[in-house]
């Protein structure tokens, strides 16, 4: 470690250097400059001269006879995505905010993020992200085994700087966690997701954050007060503070659709010892499988679905995990549900709900726009950008939801001119 006096002295020097040098940044780009930016944006780190040479060769349509899309500009992007930092840095920080309520990137690696990274690496169709029985675990000699009751396995991978490109192993949740395969729902049933969104509360958080993180719509954006309110649970006051206008003009807009779909999570919980483990570090996701009866509800439905059930006695009483998508009609039809001729779709459990959500156009658009933002460092601002987004959405779907595709296309689109 350097002495504090040295640090302060150098800091001044460096700050001066930064100021001077940043003024000389220019924007004209040839193949080499494009290659640099593509690599910077995808891997997050500078490329070696050899890698740059390879990428320039692809951009110039020559290629070196190896690699995906060799001899095409896309080959340059795929070369950049070979860098381990694409997985350890770019994808990790891309997904980390989805795994907690604070949207912080400053959280240790977890099974949610690792599974996402692994799915991208292995080109697993991303429309399975909310429904598949899939899990990625790490390998390494001193890495503790996966545990249902802590995150030590992934924290060790993080602390040891393990190369995630090379050391993630695909498996299934049912094999590792013991969760019945029919109850698995991709990222939603990872331990990290459960710890953040099944903990306490009413499980509406899992729906809200899934909509926010994977369909890029928060509840205010999908609120539709014209939907049937028959599935709104008893805990929602119909006259908050004595004024039912608030319910009729606000609450009903989100809850009518949300409660009908969040019913899919009726059997899940994240159990923890609130007294001795208030941060729930050792909590465990639970699922009331067939034959399990909650002592409060007398059914498989978790008691949290009956919180504050005297707030509005004629409200909806949850008896099972049957969900309904009321947002297939009305303004939220614009979310582009699969098979849009169906004005209503029902299902049971998180897996089928995950399929419903992840096969919507909004889901595909959300993935593409998130990638565009991460790579181009900005939102789409003009017709050119919007056209590019539309193209990428189509390509993303036709490529069987391969997320590397929009990463590569975005990097090329924003590689400068």
């Amino acid at each position: 470690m350097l002495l504090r006096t040295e640090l302060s002295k150098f800091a001044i020097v460096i700050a001066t250097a930064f100021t001077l040098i940043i003024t000389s940044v220019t924007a004209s780009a040839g193949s080499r400059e494009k290659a640099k930016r593509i690599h910077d944006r995808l891997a997050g780190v500078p490329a070696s001269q050899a890698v740059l040479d390879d990428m320039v060769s692809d951009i110039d349509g020559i290629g070196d006879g190896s690699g995906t899309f060799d001899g095409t500009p896309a080959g340059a992007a795929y070369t950049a995505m070979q860098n381990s930092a694409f997985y350890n840095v770019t994808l990790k920080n891309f997904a980390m905010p989805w795994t907690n309520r604070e949207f912080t990137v400053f959280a240790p690696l977890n099974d949610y993020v690792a599974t996402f990274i692994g799915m991208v690496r292995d080109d697993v169709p991303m429309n399975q992200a909310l429904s598949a029985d899939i899990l990625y675990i790490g390998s390494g000699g001193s890495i503790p085994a996966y545990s249902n009751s802590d995150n030590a396995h992934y924290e060790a991978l993080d602390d040891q700087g393990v190369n995630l490109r090379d050391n993630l192993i695909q498996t299934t949740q049912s094999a590792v966690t013991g969760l019945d395969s029919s109850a698995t729902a991709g990222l939603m049933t990872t331990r990290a997701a459960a710890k953040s969104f099944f903990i306490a509360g009413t499980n509406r958080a899992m729906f809200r954050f899934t909509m926010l993180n994977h369909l890029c719509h928060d509840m205010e954006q999908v609120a539709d007060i014209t939907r049937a309110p028959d599935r709104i649970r008893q805990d929602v006051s119909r006259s908050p503070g004595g004024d039912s206008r608030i319910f009729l003009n606000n609450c009903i807009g989100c809850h009518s659709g949300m409660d009908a779909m969040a019913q899919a999570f009726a059997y899940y919980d994240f159990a923890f010892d609130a007294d001795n483990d208030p941060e729930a570090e050792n909590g465990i996701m639970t699922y009331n499988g067939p034959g399990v009866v909650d002592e409060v509800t007398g059914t498989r439905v978790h008691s949290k679905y009956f919180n504050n059930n005297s707030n509005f006695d004629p409200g909806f009483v949850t008896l099972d995990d049957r969900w309904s998508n009321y947002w297939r009609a009305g303004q939220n039809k614009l979310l582009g549900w699969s098979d849009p001729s169906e004005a209503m779709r029902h299902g049971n459990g998180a897996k089928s709900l995950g399929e419903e959500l992840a096969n919507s156009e909004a889901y595909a658009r959300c993935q593409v726009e998130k990638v565009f933002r991460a790579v181009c460092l900005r939102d789409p601002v003009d017709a050119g950008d919007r056209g590019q987004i539309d193209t990428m959405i189509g390509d993303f779907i036709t490529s069987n939801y391969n997320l590397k595709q929009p990463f590569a296309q975005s990097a090329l689109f924003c590689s400068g001119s």
Partner: protein
Amino acid sequence: MNAPAPALRQLHRLERNDALRSRMSSFLLWAMMIGLLLLSGCGGGGGADTTSNPPGGGEGGGDYNGPAPQTADVQAFRLALWENVRDENRCGACHSAVGGQDPMFARSDDVNLAYAAAIMPVVNRGDPDESLLVTQVADGHFCWLTSNEACADTMENYIENWIGGSGGAVNEIELSIPIQKDVGESKNFPDDSSGFSPIHTLLTTYCADCHVDSVDLPQQPYFAVSDIDAAYDVVKSKINLDTPEDSRLVVRLGSEFHNCWDDCTANADEMETAIQTFSDSIVPTEVDPDLVISKALLLGDGIVASSGGRFETNVIALYEFKTGTGSTAFDTSGVEPAINMTFSGDVEWVGGYGIRVTEGGKAQGLTDTSQKLRDRITLTGEYSIEAWVVPGNVVQEDANIISYSGSDTSRNFTLGQTMYNYDFFHRSSTTGANGDPAHSTNDDDEDLQATLQHVVVTYDPANGRRIYVNGVFTDDIDETEGGNLSDWASNFALVFGNETSGNREWEGTLRLVAIHERALTEEQILTNFEVGVGQKFYLLFNVSDHVGLPDAYVVFAVSQFDSYSYLFEEPFFISLDETAVPNSVPMMGMRIGINGREATIGQAYRTLDTTLEAADYSAASGLSLSPTGTIIGLEKGPESDEFFLTFELLGSSSNVVVEADPIAPPTPPDGAPVSDIGVRTFDEINYSMAELTGVSITNSNVLETYETVKQQLPTTENAQTFLSSHQVAISQLAIEYCSELVDNTTLRDGFFNDGTAFNFAAPPGTAAPLGTNWEFQVVLPLVDAVTQSTDLQPMAVGPTRTDMRDELLALITRLGGSGTATNSIAKGTCAAALGSAALLVQ
């Protein structure tokens, strides 16, 4: 008072059952005579094992010198009814031997004769609210209060107290054929208030002395405020667009002579003309002819669902807030003296019975009438405070909901709110004069919610204080032992929504308050909770035309939920023809219509998809359609809003509803051009420095520094958000990486060595300054690394190779001149390059 002995309790029960049977018999007979269907209703029941009549509170109770009551029932009549009505300022002025007006049920000379005169038809023991005594005062016949409804409720309670209380009443629903009318054209209030302007002019001209919020004694509703939109919003329920002459604004002037500005008839005509003009400007809403609709009903066309079943045997103060106007909430318990509560500050009536207290308002009784509480409760040594409340929020603290107190520091009892908790202060021999320590609900349970709740607090010496929310004991045990109430003060006042001083403001709505002189049991509390609050009507929507059955109805229980909506619940299908049975009648997509159109919001039954099967149907109870309730927005008011039902499919009638596709939002305009470059973020910076220097990110010194500065590094790529603090953190990390690089022989030789050894240990001036060894062995390797350039392949973006080289060489010159050690100069030079924009910008 002690609980009655078992034998006595049994006797009471028998008597009550006899009375009940008697009432049932007469009721059934009457029901059969008029050909109505009797349904056994839901719940209700409950009630007490014992009944006890409160001692009479009549003003003349102490000076009766006539014959003694001949029977126990006459004695009960005397205590509960006769003592309260025989004074000259009540019925005794006329219906007495002195007044000579028959029936002389209020005569003071002989209670037995008065009793005989009070028996039917003056008093209907089977149906107290149908008693002539009640209906007469309800019509304004010598009502001694300013509210006829309050007089009627009080008189009804007198009678119920006499005949054995209401605790054992069975809640019965009696369905009868309602008025049959088609859904008519209906005029609805336009959103734009401009047409209301002439009416507004009258209101602001003649009503602004009271009906505005800025005068000393403001009178709700504030329809005379200068803001026309605000006035329009609150006056709608006072205007009848379909029959302007029935508007409350007109009736109040023309028939009730309420503050006319000169001639009442002329004033009423002027108001009616203005309303007629407004009404004429509105195009009526015609019901869509394609709809499959039921007949139409007003709320008042429904059948009143008896609110009986409440346990009120020991109630000594009761507020149902039915009056709806004026500035007094009447105690209609029938137990004298009535503690009538006078409003001050911001207190307003709310629809569906209730008052809303805000911004320091309160409703307070007189200390002498309030003394009733002290006098009666200290005799029993126990009591209950029961209320239907809607806390306005869950952030208010030290807020008094119901208090019997004298100041901020002295009270007999208080039900209060602290955020999510109910607090119960109670003075006794084991607590302080301020009723402390308070007994409160548990913080974690968050029992108090900002929604309609039934809350009961009870006290008795054995159990201490207990709190029940929505019929359930909160499990909070009073840690203070029970004591006696001998220290209760007699000069306190009952107050709602505040302290008598005005220093304990509570914001919220009270929809019912009852003070009982006994601690209610859990069963009694649950009974009262299940009865609910407010007036409920059964609306029978005729659908015979569609289902092919006589007298076929879809029935809803409907009540005014608050000032802004109606609650529709418990829908069921029934035919009042006992021989009719539905046979596989499809029913789908039911919606509630109001004033000629389907309500836009709250259509909970639009998802209904069922078939009415004979196997599921009972002639007595019909066929339940849904367990779910919903609220529908109030439009014109409960007197004017006309309801009907529509169906997508009902029997042989159908109306296929196809929702139009939503319109896609327009393409947004192009935004301003934004930078297409940004800065690397924290992990990218860390990994980039590791990549360039070859130092591992897990190097202990690097890791320690990184963990220290990690959250100080940029987290977003947006260069606009780059701060000096970011640069400081980058500098620290760069210095650490460079320090590890320069101090590690292998790494530095690999990085800096151009084929000739560079002596990092040399003293200043030997390896330096400005020799070509510095330029080629230290500076250019750094420049090429961070700019990703070589001498043959310079990078055209970012700083030029020569610019950066010259800058770093100048830095070395300055550092060398100051005597800095060689390896430190190398570290500084390295850090200046590594921490510069050349690496940071992407």
